[in-house]
C-alpha cells in the first residue's frame, strides 16, 4: 500500500468537450481525530472543443471522440512536462531510445481518470489511455466520478496563470511544502453540502466525511446549464450560452419578467428548469421586438435571477436541514457571478458555515479536480485494477 503523506496524481478528463490532464499533489494530514487533505496543482492543461462546437451550436459526438483521440497524448505530455521539467517523454527515434528509458514513466504515484458520467465515446478515450499508461508505468489506477471531481474543485487553489500553472512551482523539493491554499482546504468541516451545476448536471450532495456522498436532490428534467444554453439559443446568442446570458444579464432588469421559480417551494431538494425554459420561449414569441437589445438583456437578467433564486434557496434549505458547516460549489455554472455573489450573500446569515467557491479556472471541466478526487480515494485505500476499469456513462454519485 501507499503510505506516503503526499501523493502525486496524474488526472485525465475527457467526459465531454474538454480533453484535459493535470498533476496534483494530494497531501494527507491527520488533524487531531479528523482526516484532512490539501491539494496543490503542479500543472493543469485543457484543450477545449468549445470553439469548434460553437460553429455547430453543440457537441458533435463523433467529432468529439476523434478530437479527444488527437488531443489526449499531447495534453498529457504537456501536463507532465509542466509538472516535471526534468522529465522527458520517450523519443520515437535515435540512439537514446533504450527500452528502459522508453518505459520510464514520470515520477507520479498514480493515475486518476474520469469513468463517468458523460458522453460514452468521449469517456472511452480517457479511460483506455489511462489503462494503457498504468499498465506500462505500473502505477495504481483510480476511476473517478466526474461529479466528485466538481465537488473537490472548490478546494483547489487558483492557478497562477490561467489554465496552466507555472511549472517551476512543482518538483520533488516542493512536494511536501503545504502552501497557503492547501492549508485552506485543511479546514474542511463536515457535514458539507455541495451544489454541482453544469450543462449536464444539477445536483445537491451531502458529504458526511471524505468519500461518502449522498445525493439529496437533483433535477427532474433539464440541467441548469442546459437551460442557460437553450435560453441563449432562443434569444439568438452565441454558444456556449451560459457566459452569453450572464454577460447580457448585467445590463438587464432582473424584475422585468417574472419567470416561474420551478419547484422552489416543493419541500425537497429537487430542481426543475424545463418550465423556466418554456416560459422564456413563450415570452420571446409574444414579444413585438424580440431582437431589441433592451428586451434581450431583460430576459437574460430575469431568467438568470429565477435560476439563481432556486439554486440558492435549495442550497440554504439543505444547509439548515443537515446542519452543514461547509458549502461547496462546482460545475460550469459555478463561474456565474450572480450565483457566486448571491450564494455568498445568503450564507452571510450563517456565519458558522464556510463557503468554498472554485477558482474560475476549475469551475468548468478540468483534470485537476479529477486528480484531486483520485488522490483522496487512493489515500482512503481505493483503487481500480486496470483490468476492471470500465466506462459508465450513467454513473450516479451517492444514489
Amino acid at each position, binding site marked *: 500500500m501507499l503510505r506516503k503523506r503526499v501523493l502525486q496524481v496524474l488526472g485525465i478528463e475527457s467526459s*465531454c468537450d474538454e480533453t484535459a490532464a493535470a498533476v496534483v499533489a494530494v497531501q494527507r494530514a491527520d488533524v487531531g481525530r479528523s482526516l484532512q487533505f490539501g491539494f496543490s496543482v503542479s500543472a493543469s492543461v485543457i484543450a477545449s472543443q468549445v470553439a469548434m462546437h460553437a460553429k*455547430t*451550436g*453543440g*457537441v*458533435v*459526438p*463523433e*467529432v468529439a*471522440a476523434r478530437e479527444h483521440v488527437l488531443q489526449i497524448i499531447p495534453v498529457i505530455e504537456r501536463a507532465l512536462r509542466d509538472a516535471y521539467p526534468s522529465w522527458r517523454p520517450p523519443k520515437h527515434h535515435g540512439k537514446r531510445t533504450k527500452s528502459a528509458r522508453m518505459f520510464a514513466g514520470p515520477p507520479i504515484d498514480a493515475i486518476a481518470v474520469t469513468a463517468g*458520467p*458523460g*458522453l*460514452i*465515446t468521449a469517456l472511452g478515450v480517457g479511460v483506455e489511455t489511462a489503462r494503457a499508461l498504468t499498465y506500462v508505468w505500473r502505477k495504481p489506477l483510480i476511476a473517478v466520478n466526474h461529479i466528485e471531481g466538481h465537488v473537490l474543485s472548490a478546494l483547489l487553489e487558483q492557478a497562477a496563470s490561467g489554465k496552466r500553472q507555472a511549472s517551476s512551482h512543482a518538483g520533488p523539493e516542493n512536494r511536501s511544502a503545504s502552501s497557503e491554499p492547501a492549508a485552506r482546504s485543511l479546514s474542511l468541516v463536515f457535514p458539507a453540502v455541495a451544489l454541482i451545476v453544469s*450543462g*449536464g*448536471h444539477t445536483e445537491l450532495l451531502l458529504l458526511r466525511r471524505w468519500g461518502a456522498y449522498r445525493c439529496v436532490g*437533483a*433535477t*427532474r*428534467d*433539464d*440541467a441548469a446549464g*442546459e437551460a442557460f444554453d*437553450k435560453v441563449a*439559443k*432562443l434569444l439568438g446568442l452565441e454558444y456556449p450560452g451560459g457566459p452569453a446570458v450572464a454577460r447580457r444579464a448585467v445590463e438587464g432588469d432582473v424584475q422585468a419578467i417574472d419567470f416561474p421559480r420551478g419547484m422552489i417551494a416543493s419541500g425537497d431538494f429537487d430542481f426543475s428548469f*424545463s418550465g423556466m*425554459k*418554456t416560459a422564456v*420561449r*413563450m415570452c420571446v414569441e409574444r414579444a413585438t421586438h424580440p431582437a431589441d437589445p433592451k428586451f434581450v438583456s431583460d430576459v437574460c437578467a430575469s431568467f438568470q435571477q429565477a435560476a439563481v433564486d432556486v439554486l440558492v434557496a435549495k442550497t440554504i434549505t439543505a444547509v439548515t436541514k443537515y446542519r452543514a458547516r461547509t458549502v461547496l460549489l462546482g460545475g460550469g455554472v459555478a463561474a456565474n457571478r450572480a450565483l457566486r455573489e448571491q450564494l455568498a450573500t445568503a450564507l452571510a446569515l450563517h456565519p458558522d458555515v464556510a463557503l468554498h467557491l472554485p477558482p474560475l479556472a476549475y469551475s468548468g471541466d478540468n483534470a485537476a479536480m479529477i486528480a484531486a478526487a483520485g488522490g483522496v480515494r487512493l489515500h482512503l485505500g481505493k483503487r481500480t485494477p486496470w483490468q476492471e476499469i470500465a466506462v459508465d*456513462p*450513467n454513473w450516479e454519485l451517492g444514489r
Partner: protein
Amino acid sequence: MRKSDKREEWASRSEGETTRIATRMARTLRGGEAILLDGELGAGKSVFVRGLAQGLGIRARVTSPTFVLMRVYETTRTCPRFLVHVDAYRVRNAEELVAIGLMEWTGRPDSVVAIEWGERVAEIAHAATRIIRVRLTNVDAAQRMITLD
C-alpha cells in the same frame, strides 16, 4: 418497415394530460418500435417520454438526455425490457447517433427507442419494426395538439 395505418389526434390541456396520453400509448408497445418526437422547445417532448416511461413501469427518474445524448432505462415488463431515450437536439445527422452506438438499440425486439427532434435523424429508425411519429404543436401556453402517426 410497416407503415402505420391509423392517425390519431389528441388535444392536451396540461402536462398531466400529455403524460396520460403517453402512458396509454406505452401499453400498445410490443418492442422494436422507434418513436420520433417533434415539436418546439418546451412543447412537451420530454414530458411525453416521461409518460412512456411511467406506462412501462420505469421507476427511475427520466431526465433530459440533451447533454449525454442517450439514456437507457430498464422497464418492469418482460417486453419491451428497455426504453432508450435519445435527444437529437445537438446533433446534425443520423450518422452522429450511429457513432454513439444507437444502432445497437433500434429494432431490437426487447427495446423501444424514443428520439426527441426525431425528424432530423429519421433514417436511423429504419431498422425499427414500426415507426411512430409524435408531433406536439403548441396551441397556447398550456394547450398542445398531439398527433400520433
